[in-house]
């Protein structure tokens, strides 16, 4: 966190000054480790084993927060009798369909009840959508004693029973005494009186089982009672200034603003069907029709009426998976013709740079908006394959449009940070030359498209023709007024155009319009609430008057959990939100995240629907059953409980199960995407992990063009331990060549004790650390780490697996020109299928492959 989020880390240092214990779990010793109380080196790709070890420790030693677990989680719920755990099926859950390579999830459900998730993938399978938001309020059968072997608590207990300190040491390389030190520190700081927080970033997400990493942390935090309470939680540290904002108002293909699902072409044939399949009869998502209709009203204004389902049919539909890697592979196959790249540099920053650039070469047109002509904008001119002579610029037909972009100081707008806090920034100076804001670019693009399609008689163009696109503009470049956009996002009453005060006032009858329901209130009272900057010493410690947080300016979500089931604070020290019995309402330091007047003893009637199903002691109001899910009966592609699987390419065999890798992971079986053996590949004996440095930002588009940052980390380098350096004859400052089946890169060598060899089941495993900032353009250049990585992804989020894979390191620089790829056997590159893990989804992949070869 100090390494990649130094500004946010100031709060960690402040906590440390006040006595907090900082524990840092990372394969390498970083700037965070330098100031942490405990550094825990871990083998890349094994965090579920570590976190599962914590779950086992908490349960075995009865360190969980019993009252919290019983009241606020689904620990007592009974699960379908057909459910089989990975303990029963050697690494698979029940419902695995080996033909489709997917799970059929009906056996994961609660006993006698189907329940949907608050978030997650709807279109989980090629068949009917299976994880639509719930139609039942929750489990029907419970065991309050948590002793029934079919209750969630016992299932979790059994699932992690083999994740012992010895097993953690065997898998993660963490000595048992260090593991126990961490477990004890965490447990002793989690109770009525104390809370602990987790922070993570892409070191958890960029794995073929990444979503389940975070799920494991959720289980730990729910067991310890650290969710919905001050000082607790799980914080995702986002990689850019407003990545949270671009998730809330998404740049994601399968979401509409406010986490409303994108309609699917096959199932969501009309608005009622869409709302039925994606809404919920219980919990807060039962309000979804209001949010969807208001969104459609914001899009199509007066043209959106009950008669035309509020313009629902103008919306584009999903026909399948259009995530990043899927799209790039389709580009490389000539299926996708045009590509917008805005503020991103996939030729350097995304996995398998060669395949990325191959995709770019097959396009008809490419638009890049950035501060500088990045490697993505000039893939046709400077790239490794061009240097090697394999590709000639004159053979590339892609037409490239480069648009210079304005920086944040040159435009108005808001940033949304990981705490869901919107903070407004004002334009300080006009952007130079042709540089323009994203808002200006998008607005004028839309305006021109509307002109272009004005005379079209095609039904499909109605959505563009009738779109409300009437933002007031100002200045010499006709820049749209960003506050007018914020007001539309906030929502307004259609009749008089007054700003909504919050999402609770939204209607499903077309009388309100709202661009993003969760942001409703950000422009309440027709004032920009996100621009508030009251100093800390002029307000309470929760600081409600600094910026604006969604939803409803709540600084801590699910804060009903900060009080006990009766509505009293768990302790004086941790009091935050509580039930005021005299005034008969919830009150506290923060805006209560609950129905304000619902008493703690309210219990929904059997026939209750909508928000009436939310019981007075059910804090997790977005869930159909109001509970924190230790066990997820729905919503995940790869199992109801996180399970340790090795990365696609690993240095070790899975010590827990026959199943080696995540069975449901996304793989791309193509000649230009060869894989290593699942484990013990003699050609690629070392574990590799990748990361950022403080001095550069991701693919370098913002930093490698600045002298003051470039001089701080001027060259691509690898970090290796003195032991590995000795083994390979490498000295500090030397050149080295790193190879995978995808490509070869060169870099300088930094020999450091900050990278340690690990003992994994009596054998020594070496890790190579690689920052990934460099490319062929800018003041400082170097080979790109991401060129080494193959296309493999998490099935839930489609995120690349770049934090754990295998490779080799040798002394000296790589070859030049056509000789560059010498360290890899040509035969191997031409026949990649030989190296794909054999057997169904990596089961005994290496062994069966060897069998075939002999």
């Amino acid at each position, binding site marked *: 966190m*100090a390494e990649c989020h*130094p*500004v946010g*880390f*100031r709060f960690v*240092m402040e906590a*440390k*000054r006040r006595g907090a214990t900082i524990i840092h779990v990372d394969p390498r*010793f970083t*700037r*965070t*480790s*330098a*100031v942490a109380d405990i550094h825990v080196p871990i083998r890349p790709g094994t965090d579920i084993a570590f976190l599962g070890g914590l779950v086992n420790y908490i349960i075995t030693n009865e360190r969980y927060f019993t009252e919290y677990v019983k009241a606020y989680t689904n620990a007592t719920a009974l699960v379908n009798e057909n459910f089989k755990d990975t303990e029963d099926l050697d690494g698979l859950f029940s419902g695995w369909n080996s033909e489709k390579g997917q799970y059929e999830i009906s056996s994961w459900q609660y006993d006698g009840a189907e329940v949907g998730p608050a978030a997650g993938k709807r279109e989980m399978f090629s068949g009917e959508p299976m994880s639509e938001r719930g139609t039942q309020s929750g489990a029907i059968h419970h065991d309050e004693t948590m002793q029934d072997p079919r209750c969630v608590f016992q299932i979790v207990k059994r699932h992690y029973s083999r994740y012992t300190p010895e097993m953690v040491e065997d898998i993660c390389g963490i000595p048992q005494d260090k593991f126990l030190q961490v477990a004890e520190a965490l447990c002793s700081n989690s109770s009525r009186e104390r809370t602990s927080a987790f922070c993570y970033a892409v070191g958890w997400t960029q794995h073929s089982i990444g979503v389940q990493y975070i799920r494991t942390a959720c289980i730990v935090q729910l067991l310890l009672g650290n969710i919905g309470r001050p000082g607790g939680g799980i914080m995702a540290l986002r990689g850019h200034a407003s990545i949270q904002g671009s998730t809330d108002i998404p740049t994601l293909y399968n979401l509409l603003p406010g986490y409303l699902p994108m309609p699917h072409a096959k199932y969501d044939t009309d608005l009622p069907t869409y709302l039925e399949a994606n809404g919920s009869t219980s919990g807060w998502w039962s309000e979804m029709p209001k949010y969807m209709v208001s969104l459609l009203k914001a899009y199509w204004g007066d043209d959106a009426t009950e008669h035309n389902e509020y313009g629902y049919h103008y919306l584009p539909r999903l026909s399948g998976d259009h995530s990043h890697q899927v799209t790039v592979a389709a580009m490389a196959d000539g299926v996708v013709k045009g590509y917008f790249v805005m503020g991103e540099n996939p030729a350097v920053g995304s996995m398998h740079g060669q395949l990325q650039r191959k995709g770019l070469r097959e396009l008809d047109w490419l638009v890049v908006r950035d501060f500088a002509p990045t490697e993505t904008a000039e893939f046709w001119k400077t790239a490794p394959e061009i240097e090697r002579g394999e590709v000639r610029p004159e053979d590339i037909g892609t037409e490239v449009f480069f648009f210079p972009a304005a920086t944040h100081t040159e435009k108005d707008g808001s940033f949304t940070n990981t705490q869901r806090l919107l903070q407004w920034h004002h334009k300080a100076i006009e952007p130079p030359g042709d540089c323009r804001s994203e808002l200006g670019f998008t607005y004028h693009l839309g305006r021109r498209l509307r002109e272009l399609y004005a005379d079209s008689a095609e039904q499909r163009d109605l959505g563009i023709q009738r779109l409300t696109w009437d933002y007031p503009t100002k200045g010499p470049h006709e820049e749209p007024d960003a506050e007018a956009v914020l007001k539309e996002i906030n929502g307004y009453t259609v009749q008089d155009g007054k700003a909504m005060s919050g999402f609770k006032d939204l209607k499903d009858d077309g009388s309100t319009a709202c661009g993003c329901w969760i942001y409703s209130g950000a422009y309440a009272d027709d004032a920009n609430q996100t621009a508030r900057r009251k100093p800390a010493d002029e307000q309470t410690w929760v600081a409600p008057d600094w910026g604006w947080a969604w939803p409803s300016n709540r600084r801590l979500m699910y804060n009903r959990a900060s009080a006990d089931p009766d509505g009293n604070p768990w302790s004086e020290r941790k009091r935050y939100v509580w039930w005021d019995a005299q005034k008969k309402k919830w009150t506290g330091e923060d805006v209560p995240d609950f129905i304000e007047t619902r008493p703690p003893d309210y219990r929904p009637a059997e026939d209750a629907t909508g928000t009436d199903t939310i019981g007075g002691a059910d804090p997790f109001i977005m869930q159909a059953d109001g509970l924190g899910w230790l066990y997820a009966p729905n919503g995940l592609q790869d199992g109801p409980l996180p399970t340790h699987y090795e990365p696609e390419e690993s240095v070790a065999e899975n010590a827990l199960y026959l199943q080696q890798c995540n069975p449901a992971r996304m793989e791309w079986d193509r000649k230009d995407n060869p894989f290593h053996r699942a484990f013990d590949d003699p050609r690629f004996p070392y574990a590799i992990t990748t990361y950022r*440095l*403080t*001095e550069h930002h991701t693919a370098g588009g913002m930093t490698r063009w600045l*002298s*003051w*940052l*470039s*001089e*701080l*980390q*001027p*060259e691509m*380098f690898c970090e290796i331990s003195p032991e590995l350096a000795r083994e390979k004859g490498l000295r*500090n*400052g030397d050149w080295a060549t790193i190879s995978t089946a995808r490509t070869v890169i060169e870099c*300088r*060598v*930094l020999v*450091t*004790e*900050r990278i340690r060899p690990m003992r994994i089941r009596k054998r020594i495993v070496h890790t190579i650390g690689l920052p990934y900032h460099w490319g062929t353009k800018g*003041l*400082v250049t170097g080979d790109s780490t991401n060129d080494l990585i193959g296309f493999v992804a998490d099935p839930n989020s489609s995120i690349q697996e770049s934090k754990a894979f295998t490779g080799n390191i040798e002394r000296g620089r790589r070859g030049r020109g056509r000789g560059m790829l010498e360290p890899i056997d040509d035969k191997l590159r031409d026949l990649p299928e030989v190296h794909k893990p054999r057997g169904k989804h990596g089961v005994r992949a290496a062994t069966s492959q060897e069998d075939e070869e002999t």
Partner: protein
Amino acid sequence: MATGFFTDTTVCIGCKACEVACKEWNQLPDDGFVFSGMSYDNTVMLGASTWRHVAFVERRRNDDFSWLMMSDVCKHCRSAACLEVCPTGAIVRTEFGSVYVQPDICNGCGYCVVACPFGVIDRREDDGRAWKCTLCYDRQRGGLEPACAKACPTDSIRFGEVDELRRLAEARVSTLHGEGVSDAYLYGVDQPGTDGLNAFFLLVDEPEVYNLPPDPSTPTKVAASSWSHVLAAGAALLGATVVAVVGGRQR
């Protein structure tokens, strides 16, 4: 009233925001794009174009490994060698108690470079003049704190009145001692060789570990004592001569 820096190395996270903020505010050139191989330090030392420099020390002591980081800067010595040896009067002490090089007067003689006991001040190759931290004289004149302190996310660099900083620093040392960090101490508060530093540091190891001199002193002070030795020696010699002469006469 002197202002200065208290740099607490125990909360430094090595982000180098101070280096960059300094270069940006003062519009300094880069030091070249060279991979040093010295941990994460590629600007290597303070110089004419690097007025804040973060040192990275990878330190193993038996089973204990640590990564020390320290943002180094001009110490603005109370008895400043550079100022004392400057023949043109280019280096002055400002109303903030800081040591300031007036670039329009400096003639690039370089006496200050060899005189500085910390190796801080340096001549720029292109214009030949001597440059170093100004304690953001211009920002202070405008009521702003120096750029490095402003940018520091963890308050490792504290700016303020030296006496107040000293109280803060001493309190911090005793807090750390209470927490078991017995190695913590202040470097430079009362450095006798320089009559104290207006920019001082909280360290947890010997000064040499951070590439700081253990006993810095202003050459003129040494020179003064040298001259007194010379005088003493001269007097002794004179006395001996007199004795000899007198003795000779006696003969």
